[in-house]
């Protein structure tokens, strides 16, 4: 947020791509798919986390801050302990704990969830800045390894792109499946869905509304932390103030685009990962005018953000016809038997 938003990592990347030899369309597509999946993974984690939180009826707008915190703390702990895995754990814990504040304010104190989430986001971003102040530019921090999945990676076209990735990407695949299963095939998932739609009904049936909400806000926070750590310890890697550049916000938009469903959210996240990558790849194509006019790069950088807005317009237009909409109780505090809220 704030001034750190303006810094653009992509700027650095651009220079390195421009000087590479021209590539054919197949390779272009492979690169795009692979990079899309890789870059989409942090988005995926954040989106899945927010899906879970919103399914319980709580809107958490602090995702960006939680991601930044996860990135900084994960990086820092990995540096301190020499273990990327510990860094990851630390990131998830820190973000989860912080989200609990939001849960306390929104669920127990029934305060306005928008402002609370925004406040949380500011806090998280600021804290990340503080935590990461001495971490900028460190280079020999342990990171997650990339490895090929033998056999699968030799599938033509898709193989290298999908199965020659960093381990966090595989974690992402796993998490999508787990999330889907959790939401639709477990009892808790059913209770979660009930709580988000009709907390009064769930409460009357003896389901602990507050408990579920706290739990899933924390879980959402943990996943946002995971998202940040996957950025700083795998995908980027490294730490720079404000390195998420709004991906947390894109994740919130993707939740809407994905209709609060893990599979569609995954699709959206990978799509957006590709969109973030696209400008860089396009600039390597000498036959396009982009190659020759560096100024167009600024406009290409807008692509993910413009796409998010477009995607929201689409989602809004079609939602009236589709059944899948927001959880009915999203953003509304629940108090048993209280009149007038």
């Amino acid at each position, binding site marked *: 947020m704030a001034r750190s938003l303006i810094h653009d990592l992509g700027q650095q990347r651009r220079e390195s791509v421009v000087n590479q030899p021209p590539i054919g369309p197949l390779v272009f597509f492979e690169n795009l798919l692979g990079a899309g999946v890789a870059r989409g993974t942090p988005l995926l984690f954040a989106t899945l986390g927010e899906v879970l939180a919103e399914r319980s009826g709580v809107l958490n707008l602090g995702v960006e801050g939680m991601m930044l915190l996860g990135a900084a703390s994960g990086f820092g702990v990995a540096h301190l302990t020499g273990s990327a895995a510990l860094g990851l754990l630390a990131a998830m814990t820190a973000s989860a704990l912080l989200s609990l504040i939001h849960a306390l304010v929104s669920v127990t104190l029934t305060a306005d969830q928008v402002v609370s989430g925004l406040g949380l986001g500011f806090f998280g971003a600021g804290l990340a800045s503080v935590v990461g102040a001495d971490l900028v530019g460190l280079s020999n921090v342990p990171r997650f390894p990339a490895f090929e999945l033998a056999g699968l990676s030799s599938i033509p076209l898709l193989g290298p792109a999908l199965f020659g990735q960093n381990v966090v990407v595989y974690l992402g695949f796993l998490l999508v499946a787990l999330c889907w299963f959790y939401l639709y*095939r477990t009892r808790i*998932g059913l209770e979660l869905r009930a709580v988000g739609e009709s907390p009064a*009904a769930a409460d009357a*049936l*003896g389901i602990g509304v507050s408990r579920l909400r706290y739990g899933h806000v924390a879980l959402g926070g943990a996943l946002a932390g995971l998202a940040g750590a996957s950025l700083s310890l795998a995908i980027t890697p490294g730490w720079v103030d404000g390195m998420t550049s709004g991906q947390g916000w894109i994740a919130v938009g993707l939740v809407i685009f994905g209709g609060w469903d893990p599979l569609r959210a995954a699709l959206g996240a990978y799509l957006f990962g590709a969109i973030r990558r696209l400008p860089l790849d396009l600039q390597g194509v000498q036959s396009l005018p982009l190659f020759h006019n560096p100024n167009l790069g600024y406009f290409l950088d807008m692509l993910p953000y413009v796409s998010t807005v477009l995607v929201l317009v689409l989602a809004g237009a079609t939602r009236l016809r589709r059944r899948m909409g927001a959880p009915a109780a999203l953003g509304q505090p629940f108090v048993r038997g209280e009149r007038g809220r």
Partner: protein
Amino acid sequence: MAQAPVVRLRSLSKHFGTVHAVDRVDLDLYPGEVHALLGENGAGKSTLMCMLAGLYRPDAGHLEVHGKPVSFHSPRDAMAASIGMVHQHFMLVPTLTVWENVLLGGGLPPLLRPKRAAAQVQEAAQRLGLRVDARAQVGDLGVGEQQRVEILRVLMRGVRIMILDEPTAVLSPGESEALFATIRTLCEQNCTIVLISHKLEEVRRAARRITVMRRGRSVATFDDPMESTARELAAAMVGEEVSLELHRGEPVPGDVLLEVRQLEVRSDRGLPAVRRIDLQLRAGEILGLAGVAGNGQVELMEAIAGLRPVEGGDLKLCGQSATRLSSRQRAELGLRFIPEDRTHTGTAPSLSVLENMVLRRYRGRGPWLRLDALRSRCQQQIEQLQIATSGPEQAARLLSGGNLQKVILARELDPDQARVILALHPTRGLDARATAQIRQLLLDARRTDPARGGHPARPAAILLWSEDLEELLALSDRLAVINAGRIVHTVRHGEADLPTVGRWMTGSSTEPEAARAD
């Protein structure tokens, strides 16, 4: 009554703030009986039963089930004691399927097996004689079927003592009959049913014993309902020989204030809801719309009010063509609307009582807001209508439903400006006194009788829809029956009785014609 009571409530009390919702109530329930809890709205019937069902914790008193003292901390505990409640506002999750709703919170395994669970629910429904489709989405179901899902849910939990809170409030006469048949079957299986209702006749027919509650207290128990007269029951409910008689007066029909021609309106889902309706409403009369909920009444009223687009036909207000006018312009012509949703449509919850009362007349001559001038008038109306509030500055959302409705009525039944009033079930959820008051207000709004104070200078015309058929018959000068978006019958006050109108509403007698109602 040779058997022992299966449930004993002794001295049960519950209060919210300073108000005692339930005050030292004793009650005995015997196996195999239908026990009715009769009382006006606000008497405490639901609150009492919510304590039995584990939703509320009693502040005093104790409960005994099968002779053993119990203390429920949650609905789950009550279920464990075979006690379950079917609420007035269904506790169903619309986006989940029937089987998911039925089994929710009731011992599902950690990993779900949808096919097996759906089959289980379907089989149980068949066994219990309840017609439901286990795989349907609850949001798609009609009201009667949703109620069956609720009943199925409590039965599948092994509930033997079932509490039904105002079950027929949303049912058509035919569906009510089906419900009572189900209740009879259950009683034959030695279940105990508690029927909460404010409908005298229904309770007399269906229940073996009746306990009347008033203001949180149990005031009388009638062991043989057919022996006691309706008068006795009503007296017990209201507490005095209050004549609930309304002064109808002799209204003189005046000019046509509202004219609707071949109106076509669509529902929210895009389906036709109003199919070429013709209406004429004259000053000085109440035209009642009788119809089962969902037959186009709401869409019709909203279209006339300008809150819903009109697909075809036109309408005239006070002689002027109004089809293209905005709702504000129609309001300026004298149209007023009492909506169904009083908490978020009829009032702005965080605004004060004063601000809500002036929502039709806050615009002055300039751009500046002058509420002070309107404050004394607001205070007057608060006193006149006996609105229980700490003052004009209180936030509207803190008012109870009945008082909120009075605020809306104070605003909409403005004698100076209201010419055509559209009212959607204006007495829903109000206690008997307030209900009588409001009914009288509606009747008075259409008359100019110098002998009764506070009358309008010019009589208004009222279009009224109510789910309470008795109310409609009592208030309407003319009654139009609406079915599937068409007006199928029109009668004058006193020409048809309740069962006949009920039949017309469900379309089970003559062929519906696109009749003109004038």
